[in-house]
């Protein structure tokens, strides 16, 4: 261990290049891009990505080499010590770079400081992720140079895209939670900006806002998770969390305000895990926060590929993998993660079955695949889940970029944003776009789980582990061990406690694994079906785009009466308006291009330029072969081995294979392969052989079911009706309350009282002399009445046991005292001396004093006073303070 720390390179500045290059590009393009023109923007954007990728590659190789050296050293040490196979790294290898000290906050008790630095770190996990982000990012940048070529806001697009890469890299490389959160929100921001990139359409802007807000809901979970980590683990940086993670096993009591007896006690790890999961469901589009992702397809297609398929949406996975120790401390949280994943995988797949918008299909497919990843990490197969991130990045990026090429081609033909994404208008494109066809075909085979393709290995790995893994509380084994010992030696002191604890450790029920597996397999079949449906509808058969007149409503729509294609006048107008605005701003270049195409309506859809086709092809190649990085059934596992140190602790302590599960590895592959065959087979039968008749019949047979699936099971409507309407109602209530209650009572009522009083008083100040005179008369009368009566008021002062009673003087008053001592005054007396009397009252004694007063009119009044001298009360120190005894 020692040399491990000694040789830790602590200032790995190439990270500055990886991060700095995209940031510089974003700044440069954002500020100067418009002035410098498209060529400069293009060059800059791609160049910074190349720099970033190169630096990332260099870092990765160095990391690899360094780790290799470590392993060799450890191997040597181990063999020296006589142990043969001990050359296993138990901690990730890290390169770090401290940029500057960002924040330093006093810790909970105010004693220490919790330093939160702008510190970046690359280890095995973030190294792979960083390569994916910069690599796929680079390809997508190249692709975008052509895809966006005609857009007037070219510079803005690349500025956002570069900024996104920067934020994503901060997310991945940040060495602590808050820094990850910076990236987390940063990618959310870029996603917001890019979804709403064509902001002059209301729908796009709304989709961007929806995405941001859905993510914000998740962020509350993130914040809560971070606070819990800071409190219980005492740190927020990755190493600190790992070291302090034992603190997360403390129990937390969730008070139930209504019935405190029903309070629930959970471990801090469970709460942390669930809170962070909420954040992850937002970013990684899982139930219940997935709704933003399909809408996010309003952004340009490269954005969908980069952000909403390959990188940003996987950051939730990255977080869970990164905090694997925290999550595995709570088997319950893990089970929730897995269940959420499985449910999402199935749910999104059912929606994907019937969508007609090519990007919507891919969007739901992404949601579904992310569900698989959650299923993987939730069952403790962190490396496998992460591997699916890796393969998914390739095949989904390829699919999205390919669909982008298709849309590009269709748009050149149809000139309508909505229609050019409708698969019912495509078909037969393989003739025109062979490169795209083959690339997308390869990616489809990968995602559908064709054996030996990348998706097959990752997906089946996840399914196997979902079935076979068992996540246990980290102390469970110890407890089991003690209980085991107790059987032979029942007199051990810890026995009772251990048995109790063993019962208290939660573990997922036995049926959960098989259930998750089954759900996963069904979703896999659905995946194969909708992906092949997409391929067949798009590339096979006849090209239907010839018959489309962009202005006329669609005739060939099989479900025309069910879901009219969006061709409402306002949508059309909005588009036309947008075009017009473009023209206004950007002269006539676009205009010319527009008319040219209209003039030759029969122009066939064309293959994308090489800058677009090549990246797709490269990604497709990876999609095919990347599986061999972690082909568990074939025991080719370089990636698994590479990631092992990151998950070493967890694999040792918390995650285990069920007994006898090793033998099931091969048999359990069969359902997966079958799912692929069935799904793709049915798609072939229905869409190629049957030319889409069966689905139409099915839809006609169950119209409501079909419509519900088409409308995404009305989840958006449900959210609208509950959460959004609810918030709206609350806001309405608050606004009304502010106007009528708060302002009403405080401002209006107060001023009403004041002005009412004023009105009453004003009535007397009317300038009529008689009213004033009446006032004088009434006042004089009042005084007369008052002074006509004698008043016997007394004040008592105490000095020890001596009490002095003093009567108030008055006009012509005469006094007669009776102090209760038998020497009562017989005559009235006047003067100073008559005013005061002294009396001695012992402790706990009460005396009566009688005073008779006569005034000038001879009227008398009698007043009796009791004088008590109580015992001094016990000194109560904290009046009313909680815990202190109250005063008497």
């Amino acid at each position, binding site marked *: 261990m020692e040399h491990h720390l000694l040789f830790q390179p602590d200032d790995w500045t190439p990270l500055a290049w990886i991060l700095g290059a995209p940031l510089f590009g974003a700044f440069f393009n954002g500020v100067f891009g418009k002035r410098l023109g498209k060529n400069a923007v293009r060059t800059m954007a791609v160049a910074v990505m190349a720099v970033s990728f190169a630096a990332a590659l260099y870092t990765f190789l160095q990391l690899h080499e360094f780790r290799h050296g470590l392993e060799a050293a450890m191997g040597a040490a181990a063999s020296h010590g006589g142990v043969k196979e001990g050359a296993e790294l138990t901690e990730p290898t890290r390169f770090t770079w401290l940029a500057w000290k960002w924040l330093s906050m006093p810790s909970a008790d105010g004693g220490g400081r919790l330093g939160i630095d702008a510190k970046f770190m690359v280890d095995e996990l973030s190294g792979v992720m960083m390569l994916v982000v910069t690599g796929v990012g680079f390809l997508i940048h190249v692709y975008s140079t052509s895809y966006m070529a005609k857009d007037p806001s070219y510079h803005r697009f690349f500025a956002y895209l570069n900024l996104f890469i920067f934020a994503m890299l901060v997310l991945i490389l940040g060495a602590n939670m808050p820094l990850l959160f910076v990236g987390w929100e940063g990618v959310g921001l870029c996603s917001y900006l890019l979804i709403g990139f064509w902001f002059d359409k209301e729908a796009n802007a709304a989709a961007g806002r929806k995405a941001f807000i859905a993510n914000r809901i998740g962020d509350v979970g993130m914040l809560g998770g971070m606070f819990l980590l800071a409190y219980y683990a005492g740190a927020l940086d990755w190493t600190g969390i790992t070291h302090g993670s034992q603190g997360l096993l403390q129990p937390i009591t969730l008070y139930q305000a209504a019935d405190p007896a029903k309070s629930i006690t959970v471990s801090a790890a469970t709460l942390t895990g669930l809170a962070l999961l909420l954040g992850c469901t937002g970013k990684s589009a899982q139930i219940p926060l997935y709704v933003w992702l399909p809408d996010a397809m309003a952004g340009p297609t490269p954005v969908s590929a980069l952000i909403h398929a390959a990188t940003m949406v996987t950051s939730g996975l990255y977080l869970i993998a990164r905090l694997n120790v925290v999550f595995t401390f709570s088997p319950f949280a893990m089970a929730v993660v897995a269940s959420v994943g499985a449910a999402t995988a199935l749910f999104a797949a059912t929606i994907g079955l019937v969508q007609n918008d090519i990007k919507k299909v891919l969007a739901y497919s992404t949601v579904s695949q992310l569900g698989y990843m959650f299923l993987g990490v939730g069952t403790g197969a962190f490396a496998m889940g992460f591997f699916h991130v890796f393969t998914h990045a390739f095949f989904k990026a390829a699919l999205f970029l390919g669909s982008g090429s298709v849309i590009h081609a269709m748009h050149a033909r149809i000139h309508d944003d909505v229609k050019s994404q409708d698969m019912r208008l495509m078909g037969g494109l393989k003739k025109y776009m062979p490169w795209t066809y083959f690339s997308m075909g390869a990616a489809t085979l990968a995602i559908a789980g064709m054996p030996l393709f990348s998706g097959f290995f990752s997906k089946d790995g996840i399914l196997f582990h979902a079935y076979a893994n068992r996540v246990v509380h980290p102390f469970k084994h110890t407890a089991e061990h003690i209980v085991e010992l107790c059987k032979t030696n029942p007199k051990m002191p810890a026995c009772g406690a251990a048995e109790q604890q063993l019962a208290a450790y939660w573990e997922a029920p036995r049926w959960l694994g098989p259930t998750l597996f089954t759900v996963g397999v069904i979703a896999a079949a659905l995946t194969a079906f909708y992906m092949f449906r997409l391929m067949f509808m798009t590339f096979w058969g006849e090209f239907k785009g010839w018959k489309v007149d962009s202005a006329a409503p669609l005739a060939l729509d099989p479900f025309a009466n069910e879901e009219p294609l969006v061709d409402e006048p306002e949508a059309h107008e909005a588009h036309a308006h947008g075009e017009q605005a473009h023209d206004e701003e950007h002269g006539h270049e676009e205009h010319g291009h527009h008319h040219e195409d209209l003039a030759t309506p029969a122009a066939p859809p064309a293959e994308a330029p090489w800058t677009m086709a090549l990246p797709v092809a490269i990604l497709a190649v990876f999609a095919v072969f990347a599986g061999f990085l972690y082909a568990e059934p074939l025991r080719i596992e370089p990636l698994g081995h590479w990631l092992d140190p990151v998950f070493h602790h967890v694999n040792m302590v918390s995650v285990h294979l069920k007994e006898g599960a090793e033998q099931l590895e091969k048999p359990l592959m069969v359902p997966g392969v079958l799912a692929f065959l069935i799904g793709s087979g049915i798609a072939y039968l229905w869409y190629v052989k049957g030319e889409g008749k069966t689905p139409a019949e099915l839809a006609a047979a169950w119209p409501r079911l079909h419509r519900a699936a088409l409308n995404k099971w009305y989840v958006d409507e449900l959210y609208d009706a509950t959460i959004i309407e609810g918030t709206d109602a609350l806001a309405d209530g608050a606004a009304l309350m502010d106007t009528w209650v708060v302002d009403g009572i405080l401002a209006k009522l107060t001023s009403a009282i004041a002005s009412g009083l004023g009105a009453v008083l004003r009535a007397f100040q*009317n300038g*009529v002399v*008689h009213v004033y005179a009446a006032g004088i008369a009434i006042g004089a009368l009042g005084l007369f009445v008052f002074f006509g009566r004698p008043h016997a008021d007394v004040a008592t002062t105490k000095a020890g046991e001596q009490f002095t009673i003093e009567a108030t003087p008055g006009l012509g008053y005469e006094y007669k005292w009776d102090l209760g001592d038998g020497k009562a005054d017989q005559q009235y007396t006047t003067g100073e001396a008559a005013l005061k009397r002294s009396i001695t009252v012992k402790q706990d004694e009460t005396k009566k004093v009688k005073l008779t007063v006569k005034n000038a009119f001879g009227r008398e009044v009698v007043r009796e006073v009791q004088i008590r001298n109580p015992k001094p009360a016990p000194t109560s120190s904290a009046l009313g303070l909680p815990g202190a005894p109250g005063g008497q």
Partner: protein
Amino acid sequence: MNAIPIPAFLVVAAILFGIGAVGFLVRRNVLVALMSIELMLNAVNVTFVAFNRLHADAHVGQLFAFFNIAVAAAEAAVGLAIVLSFFRLRRTVRSDAGDLLKN
């Protein structure tokens, strides 16, 4: 000689004062109001003179009665002057026409 008892004077004075006070409070004619004030002052004069009988050597009561008569005369003169100018301004002698303070 059998003098009239003092309380009788006081009763008369009180009645006079009451008439004056009520008259002042009730009537709106400024002239009547002035006259009511005179009435009240005179009621006070009567009490002064009556009480003077108790301290026959002092003459303080008589003295005060004369002062009062002088003050009443001055007051009547000033009051009438005000009434005159008020009448010139407002063409009325009703006192509630003089509530200009209000506006």
